[in-house]
């Protein structure tokens, strides 16, 4: 449905011949504005939310800040362009935002149909199940006959139907609209199981009176790779966003952190020196200053630090790295080399 709306809107835009005129030179625009406008969500726990004084915080916001640190040298020069699931792509395509960091699943139709450019994955999500421990269920394959709380009109609904029929099981759907409504229904026992993306399950579980009485089952039944997007037609800007993400991952892999980035500038490892701009001119090739990655790590941190600060095990959300661990530690986070 969302995709359909955006597709219709983009089609209308094409007819008008406006979206066809690409807006090259995003980098110059951002630098002359002096502020980076990120299309972000209107609130997803741990990923983007305003704190009590209105400052936007979260995993996606930190990546926006990292981009600002690379492009403008100051991570605080960001403006959050809040958008709902329905307006996010048009906001980006109409030029109201410079880059989208908004918990957005990369799909074929969005990449091709909506004419976006995706730049890698900053969070591997997937649909999971949460149950009460007292049910004594340890695997999703034991859920035959369960009542399941499910958001209507989403892909989660279709994934659930596929999974249950593929395993020859039956379920009783309890349809709900929002996460809060789901939590209320699950808490009051109207459904035995709540299913949504694993990151959403984590935040729902942490808001329950006794989180330890509930568990997220190990099965993940869908692929939801979330990543940043930009408009078609500005390759330089696309490269910048791609390598901002890669820089945070590479920094973690090389052990460069917020705390030790200054010492690391005199490291013996040539890749660290290239990353931090001590050797070579990779920053200039991107159109940025040579210490762009240094600024990211100094001001925002590496991938692991961003993860742990916003959604990691020590936060109320308590999400384990899982698929989002580095490839060297059994995860999928893998950056091409800085060479």
């Amino acid at each position, binding site marked *: 449905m969302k995709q359909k709306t955006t597709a219709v809107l983009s089609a209308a835009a094409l007819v008008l011949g406006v*979206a066809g005129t690409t807006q090259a030179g995003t980098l110059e625009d951002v630098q002359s504005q002096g502020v980076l406008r990120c299309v972000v969500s209107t609130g997803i726990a741990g990923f983007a939310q305003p704190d009590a004084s209105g400052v936007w915080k979260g995993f996606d916001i930190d990546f926006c800040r990292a981009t600002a640190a690379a492009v403008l040298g100051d991570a605080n020069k960001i*403006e959050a362009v809040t*958008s709902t699931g329905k307006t996010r792509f048009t906001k980006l395509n*109409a*030029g*109201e935002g410079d880059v989208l960091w908004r918990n957005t699943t990369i799909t074929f139709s969005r990449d091709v149909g909506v004419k976006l450019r995706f730049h890698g994955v900053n969070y591997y999500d997937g649909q999971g199940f949460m149950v009460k421990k007292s049910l004594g269920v340890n695997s999703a394959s034991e859920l035959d006959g369960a009542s399941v709380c499910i958001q209507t009109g989403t892909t989660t609904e279709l994934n659930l139907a596929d999974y249950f029929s593929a395993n020859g099981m039956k379920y009783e759907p309890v349809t709900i609209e929002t996460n809060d409504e789901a939590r209320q229904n699950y808490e009051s026992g109207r459904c035995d199981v709540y299913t949504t993306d694993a990151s959403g399950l984590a935040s729902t579980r942490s808001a329950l009176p*006794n989180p330890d009485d509930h568990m997220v089952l190990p099965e993940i039944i869908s692929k939801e790779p979330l990543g940043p997007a930009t408009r078609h037609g500005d390759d330089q800007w696309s490269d910048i966003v791609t390598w901002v993400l890669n820089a945070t991952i590479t920094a973690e892999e090389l052990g460069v952190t917020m705390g030790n980035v200054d010492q690391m500038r005199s490291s013996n490892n040539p890749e660290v020196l290239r990353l931090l701009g001590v050797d070579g001119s990779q920053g200039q090739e991107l159109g940025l200053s040579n210490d762009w990655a240094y600024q990211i790590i100094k001001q925002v941190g590496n991938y692991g630090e961003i993860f742990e600060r916003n959604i990691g095990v020590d936060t109320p959300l308590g999400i384990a790295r899982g698929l989002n661990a580095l490839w060297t530690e059994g995860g999928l986070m893998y950056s091409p080399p800085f060479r």
Partner: protein
Amino acid sequence: MTKSFNPQSYEPGTHPDLPPPAITTGLIGWIKTNLFSSPLNTALTLISLWFLWQILPSSIHWLFTGAVWSAVDRKECWAMMDAPRDGACWAFIRGSLELFLYGWYPEPERWRVNLTFILFGAAVFGALRENIPGKKYWLMFAAVFPFLAAWLLFGGFGLEPVPTGKLGGILLTLVVAVTGISFSLPLGIALALGRRSRLPVLRAICVIFIEFIRGVPLITLLFVASTMLTYFLPPGSSFDLLMRVLIMVTLFAAAYIAEVVRGGLQGLSSGQYEAADALGLTYWQSHRLIILPQALKISIPGIVNTFIGSYKDSVLVLIIGMMDILGLGRARLNDPDWLGLAPELYIFISLFFFVSCFAMARYSLSLEKKLETGHQS
């Protein structure tokens, strides 16, 4: 000296007549006539009492006695209660109150918002109050107020400019609602007069406008404002999102006001129009002096109804990602430190809307009573 009984010699109120039977007056009488007048009413009363007995103690406990008013996060909040969710965690609302009120308005400039709120109160008071010295100047002030408020809030001409994106929370809700309300009334009256005009082109334009706007849901207009308009405008030109939304909200309310006012105009007997013509008044004179004062009086309930409707409709802007009180509140629900406090937030927001809408409704009622001339047309 015997004095004959003369009722006329008593001062009013001191006549020694027997009072009415106690059973028909006072609390008991009221209860008997209103709550237990028939078996059905008795049953309904008892059911209601039982129902209140069931919900009141636990509601009061949750809302007040068991509630926590200050805590650093939800964990601490719930730890202070007998059991999690045993009471409301108002600390969440208290901590965000300033954000809910001002949004992202820069802190050193917030006096401007406060001043606008005060001037708004003065403008409403001055415009609505009868028997106030210098009524003419109060009305002029109320007419100038929207422009004054725009200058104060958005800056320019000597004040630090504040981008419209910094508005949020209750401030944004009020800006959207008050703009919609104050500009839609004159526009709506003009449209209503245009629709009844004898000039065919003018009439056609007004009819098309009104019917188009009324035929489209507000949410569609908001989507057009937020997404489509940017495609219609030349690339690179940016037209402020808030401004686009304000225009759409105003046009939407104006179309409804126009129909309400047209109802009022049609409610007048044709004798009023003919009398005005017979006096030799021009079109504008007759409308200003005779037609509109009466037509608007009849239309008050409908106009206030439209106002309240458009005030509450203003929360729809959250669907296009604007952070009004509801949008901002829902964003705050995602703070990992305060997850799971949706009931507290929604109670707070409904209280805010209830108080303001109830005040509008009461005012309209008193205005109707005051303008009542005892003539039902």
